[in-house]
């Protein structure tokens, strides 16, 4: 049961983690994240890195689509902009890693703002179609601006160097990716405690009254696009360091749909939803693969017979979530929490 939560100051009531229990759990989570690389093998570190990159990009899309209500299918393309920017900066200029990532984020933010301009006129499904244009146009640029992107052959990215150490294994990259992920998530959570985040939600819920109440629509929508693309750009930059090669085919439209599915499965308009959705979408196919592996000793032909079923099961799980928990995984978590807040009394 939730007790001893009385606050004495407004600042304490506005805190992100407002009870001692929450702060303890958060500390435990951080400790677990710090210990994880020492306990896990290469394979799990690889998955953790990939999941963290997806979490960043999904959180960006969640700010745009979940919180501001602007449906976008351009997120993968903006990741591509970030990835190419980082690849060019790393391979040609050899600037420091953090500067490259910042550059990737900022260039993506600029490009995202340009493709966000139609959002003032079109909404919903129409905006989604308009943002597909970003996917096609940017793919064309990646493939044909050969002097910078080297066309279809792509750019090979040297490993990130941090104080002279080459970050060339998932273990070493983990220490770059995970802190950035945590910082960006805290930033996103902070955003929705301030006027900027409130304006995003107001635009989503009632854009016309929001304007009459003092919120400039164009600026708010473009800020949201810029921020979502910044997150995408940083994620794309980390992706470039992670896979070490960037080609025009690295960021297809399908990835945008994957990211959109992640926020829907996780829960639109909650930070936790973005995290859960991205982790679910990245790891569940791998878990299913592992499951097939477990069965193999008993049933040697399992891989042959179950592999196609695996994809079907994954698809069915997504459909199941949409039907039984349209608010996403985050809502399931909230319900669990509510149960324990009231326990031993019945909800």
């Amino acid at each position, binding site marked *: 049961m939730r007790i001893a939560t009385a606050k004495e100051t407004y*600042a304490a009531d506005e805190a992100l983690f407002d009870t001692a229990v929450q702060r303890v759990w958060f500390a435990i989570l951080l400790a677990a994240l710090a210990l994880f690389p020492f306990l896990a093998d290469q394979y799990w570190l690889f998955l953790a890195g990939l999941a963290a990159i997806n979490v960043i990009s999904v959180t960006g899309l969640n700010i745009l689509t979940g919180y501001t209500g602007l449906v976008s299918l351009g997120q993968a393309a903006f990741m591509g902009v970030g990835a190419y920017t980082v690849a060019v900066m790393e391979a040609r200029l050899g600037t420091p890693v953090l500067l490259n990532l910042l550059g990737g984020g900022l260039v993506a933010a600029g490009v995202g703002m340009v493709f966000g301009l139609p959002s003032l006129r079109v909404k919903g499904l129409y905006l989604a179609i308009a943002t597909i244009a970003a996917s096609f146009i940017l793919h064309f640029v990646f493939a044909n601006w050969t002097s910078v992107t080297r066309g279809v052959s792509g750019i090979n990215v040297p490993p990130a160097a941090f104080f002279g150490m080459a970050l060339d294994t998932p273990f070493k990259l983990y220490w770059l990716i995970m802190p950035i992920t945590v910082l960006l998530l805290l930033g996103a959570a902070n955003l929705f*405690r*301030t*006027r*900027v985040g*409130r304006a995003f939600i107001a635009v989503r819920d009632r854009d*016309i009254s929001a304007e*009459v109440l*003092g*919120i400039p629509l164009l600026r708010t929508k473009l800020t949201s696009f810029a921020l979502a693309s910044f997150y995408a750009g940083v994620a794309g930059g980390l992706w470039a360091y992670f896979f070490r090669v960037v080609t025009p085919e690295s960021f297809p439209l399908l990835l945008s749909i994957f990211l959109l599915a992640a926020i829907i499965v996780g829960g639109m308009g909650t930070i936790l939803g973005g995290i859960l959705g991205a982790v679910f979408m990245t790891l569940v196919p791998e878990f299913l693969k592992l499951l097939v592996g477990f069965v193999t000793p008993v049933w040697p032909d399992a891989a042959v017979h179950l592999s196609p079923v695996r994809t079907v099961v994954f698809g069915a799980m997504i459909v199941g979530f949409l039907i039984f928990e349209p608010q996403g995984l985050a809502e399931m978590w909230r319900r669990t929490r509510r149960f324990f807040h009231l326990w031993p009394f019945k909800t």
Partner: protein
Amino acid sequence: MGADAAPATPVLEVENLSLSFGGIRALNGVSFAVQPGSITSVIGPNGAGKTSLFNSISGFYKSTGTVRVDGKPIDHLHPPERAKLGLARSFQNIALFRGMTVLDNIKLGRHAHMKTGLLDALFYFGRARREEVELRREVEERIIDFLEIDHIRKAPVASLPYGLQKRVELARALAMRPRLLMLDEPVAGMNREETEDMARFILDVREEWGVPVLMVEHDMGMVMDISDHVVVLNFGQMIAQGTPREVQANPEVAAAYLGTGDVADLRRRVAAETRLPETREVA
């Protein structure tokens, strides 16, 4: 109020305001003023142009004519800039943000007066925190206490009953640092008790905050009880204005609301046109 020899500058002046939608003139040469510290009501039958008038003053509709706030024309300003000047309003069909709590809805009203930028917001500690805590204190101590909604401050607005939602809308308008409070049907659909509460809050806002009120309302009992000045619209024209007593005595107003002419004659004409065999006279 404002009966002295040298009249103060009106808080809001509307001069010759006209608005057309295609061929329909929603507003036609409407002029009136809201004096400091007064409660001004706009009344009129359905479709008279009351809400169009509000939307024109807010800058949401592009109208011709002049709107002045504290003597300065604001025709070139966009809606958010007008909101920043203190044209705070509530809406006829409640326009709260359903995804936010009561507290966040109220805080949103202050948006235009806050300075937190994107970077401050992401970082939070420092400037953003200071501004948020300061706002929280003011909202709690001046608005939530005043409107007696402290028990619902963390509730999502979608879960609240209608009367409380209306009160939260008033709270949000108060958070906008109002120079003029524009209320579009503040008591529509309320029962007698809720109406009396709202009327008391409106009078208290005027007394304690010194903010003049401009409201559209259909509840004639309330309009006549608390207004200092009444403006009557019909088919986009202003047909009368004055004190509640003057407006009530005005035959044109009665005609607009109740209709005119000889009832028996009208019946005969209708009967002739629809070729009914005969119409019975009903007492």
